[in-house]
């Protein structure tokens, strides 16, 4: 009973921290990027101010849009919110652990992506259509790579829930294997594409021909844009959590043991900070690639994912 209560509190804490902290993570990354470029950068709390300002504005609806115009941002937000709740952050063994299968999480990301794409097609103007078509193209390779990666994780951890993978990787002695290296590279490539970061998309671009994500939300304003922007922040945090949980599971707390929480929370913050630094340094040192080079980038991720599964077999045979 006490264990259940602790797990419940841990789950609520995780959800609250993620939902409150997501804009802060974005703010930190923006600040770090600006520093790396030698600028002073916006204040850390700028994303909160941005969302608050958007909430106060009047929401405009284009006259060419249908009644579902307001539905797509909500759909995308809800899918990302559920995904964020399911992916563990500072602790394993949350109440949502059983529902958090890796395939379900891929599906939720796909749901958010399709809602955003439909939002882009809603108004019926060129930018939205082009953005949606490119997003559909990226999604094809990204989803294939993500599924193939699951094979390597499932073979090592004997389970397919993200929570179970984290527990297995933290407790069992997996060691540093070639397969996990490949898997990490593939996962990072997919994560960069899914969250719309450089080198596949430019998060700070607003009106250029190569943009993808920004093109689809071009017609949204006011509280609908706030919902979409907040969804984007949640997605970034969810991906950081996913990578952190699978590849850096050390020091994660146990939901039923309250004394392990402070350490888990501190390490979680540390991991997020490290990932934010790595992301911002990577972003300022790379250029955005052409739209039609991205599938090659993701195709390489797909192959790496397959190699990870095959190498595991070889490693099991030679006893490494």
């Amino acid at each position, binding site marked *: 009973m006490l264990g259940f209560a602790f797990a419940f509190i841990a789950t609520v804490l995780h959800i609250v921290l993620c939902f409150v902290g997501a804009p802060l993570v974005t703010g930190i990354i923006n600040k770090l990027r600006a520093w790396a470029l030698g600028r002073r950068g916006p204040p850390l709390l700028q994303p909160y101010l941005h969302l608050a300002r958007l909430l106060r504005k009047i929401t405009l609806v284009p*006259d060419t849009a249908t009644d579902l115009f307001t539905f797509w941002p909500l759909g995308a937000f809800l899918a990302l919110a559920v995904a964020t709740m399911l992916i563990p952050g500072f602790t394993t063994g949350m109440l949502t652990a059983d529902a958090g299968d890796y395939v379900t999480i891929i599906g939720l990301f796909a749901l958010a992506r399709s809602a955003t794409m439909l939002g882009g097609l809603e108004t019926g103007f060129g930018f939205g259509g082009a953005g949606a078509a490119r997003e559909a193209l990226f999604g094809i390779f990204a989803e*294939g790579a993500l599924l193939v990666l699951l094979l390597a994780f499932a073979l090592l951890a004997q389970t397919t829930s993200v929570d179970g993978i984290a527990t297995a990787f933290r407790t069992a002695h997996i060691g540093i294997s070639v397969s996990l290296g490949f898997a990490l590279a593939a996962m990072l490539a997919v994560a960069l594409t899914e969250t719309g970061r450089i080198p596949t998309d430019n998060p700070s671009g607003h009106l250029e021909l190569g943009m993808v994500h920004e093109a689809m939300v071009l017609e949204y304003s006011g509280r609908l844009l706030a919902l979409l922007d907040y969804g984007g922040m949640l997605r970034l945090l969810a991906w950081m959590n996913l990578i952190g949980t699978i590849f850096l599971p050390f020091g994660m707390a146990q939901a039923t043991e309250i004394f392990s929480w402070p350490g888990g929370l501190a390490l979680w913050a540390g991991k997020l900070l490290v990932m934010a630094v790595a992301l911002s340094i990577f972003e300022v040192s790379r250029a955005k690639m052409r739209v039609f080079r991205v599938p090659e980038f993701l195709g390489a991720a797909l192959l790496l994912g397959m190699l990870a599964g095959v190498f595991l077999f*070889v490693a099991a045979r030679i006893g490494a």
Partner: protein
Amino acid sequence: MGNSIGLMFGLPGQGMHLHLDALSLLFVCILLPQTVAAALAGMRGSFTFWLFVLGMALALLAGDAFTLIFGFELMSAASWLLVMQGDARPATLYAGVAIFSGACLIPALFLPVSSLAFVLIALGAGAKAGLAPLHSWLPRAHPAPPAGVSALMSGGMVKVALYVLIRYAFVNLAPAAQPWWGVALVAAGALSVLIGALRAVLEVELKTVLACSTVEHVGLITVGLGLALYAKATGDAALSGLALQAALLCAVAHGLFKPLLFIGAGEVKHATGTTSLNWLGGLMRGMPRLGALMLLGAACMAALPLGPGFAPAFLLFHAAIGAAATGGILARIGFSGLLAVLGIGGALALAAAVRLIGLGFLGRPRSLHAAAAEDLRRGPYLAMALLGVLCTPVALVPGLILELLNPVIMLLAPQADAPPLSYAPLTLLLLAGLAALAAGFVQTRWGTRGLREVAAWNGGFGRPPAWLPFGDPHTQASATGFAEPVMRLLGKGLLGTTLADPAERFLLLPLFRLQTRLIRLAERVRRATIRERLAFVFAVLVAFLLALGLGQGG
């Protein structure tokens, strides 16, 4: 369940027998709602339609081989008539494939239990189900007849063919089962998934898109069946149960949402006079009820979470992972490739569904017909609503449906033992509800309410001129344009620049060339002069005598 009855007519001295067990009951249950829906959608006056339904029911309930073949061929013949009523062009190809499938099935049913019988069954049933590489007729023939028949052909007829495959591969031919049977089915299914999903993204006609998606779903079901067959032959109880669950649940879901989408496509045709996505757009405004139902169907087609299509896909992915974890290095590489194909196929299906809804129902109208479309008629509305309501339990309580499928799985693979489903749509729904409540609270507490309708910003371009009420259609992404990135990177490589189906290029075209060559040969024989004929007869006689003499002398 093992209820048999004999009928008073049929083969002399034998009669016909009907037999009902869990498997046929499941497929009758899949067939029933779509038959009701198709009848409601305007087919109830057609005698041929009821003949078609009778054929399918006979094939499903058959207790002996003759009844099965009789029902199967009745189904083929009646559907051929219905296809011909719609469009005569694909009817010939359709009849040819039906004859091919009959020619494979009839000997197979009377052969002893062997691998040869399985190959013939797989060819015959696969050709009728639209399994690659014998699928190229399906995207041509299924869109041809009226919507109700298309719905039943895509949702029901391919299931009857798969039923025959399941019945023979798992039950009647079980003693001779080999692992390679399953591998062959998985390979054919994976090919179908890839080609069907890719073509669904590239095609422009609404009904052709749906037919290509049927090829994809037949592929998914076959991959599940193949994995189950493979696992059954290698004695993997958990995997065979999981794969069978995936295949059967996929068949149930597909039997609900594909007829829904086809009937909707027929209503689009009725309201606008076209099904080309390049002439539609903005239908959600004039046809909100149709739009909502089509959105539901498209969500199932794309296998999105909280839709009925997700649970089967979820089970199938897990079955593929389970299969990749067993076996040798070749199995590892092959099943990893299968996973990649399933992932790519799933994302392609998502792109196809988004394209169907986004270009057909959202945005601006691309023609005046699309702008002036009126909503659903009463009959099709009832039909689509029935199918939509039936989708709900499959979407929200897939665990319960899997419990109902258990007797079928026990019949097909008695030792199968599937782990419980770890996908919980109700939990996801609860979490989504919580997030929606939180968002609503923030919005009412700090947000500004109200919406204001304005001209679209469109990156700063000006308003369209007055004589273009919906703006310039060319400034909106077209169906071809939306598919262009996929075409450029995948389509050209796999289908070639002409978009011809690879099965047509590599299977039908060589067959056609062979036929031409044989006709030329026959023509030369016919035109031979009397001297040539006499010389031929003489030569044969000499050869015969030589052979005889050498045989006796030696």
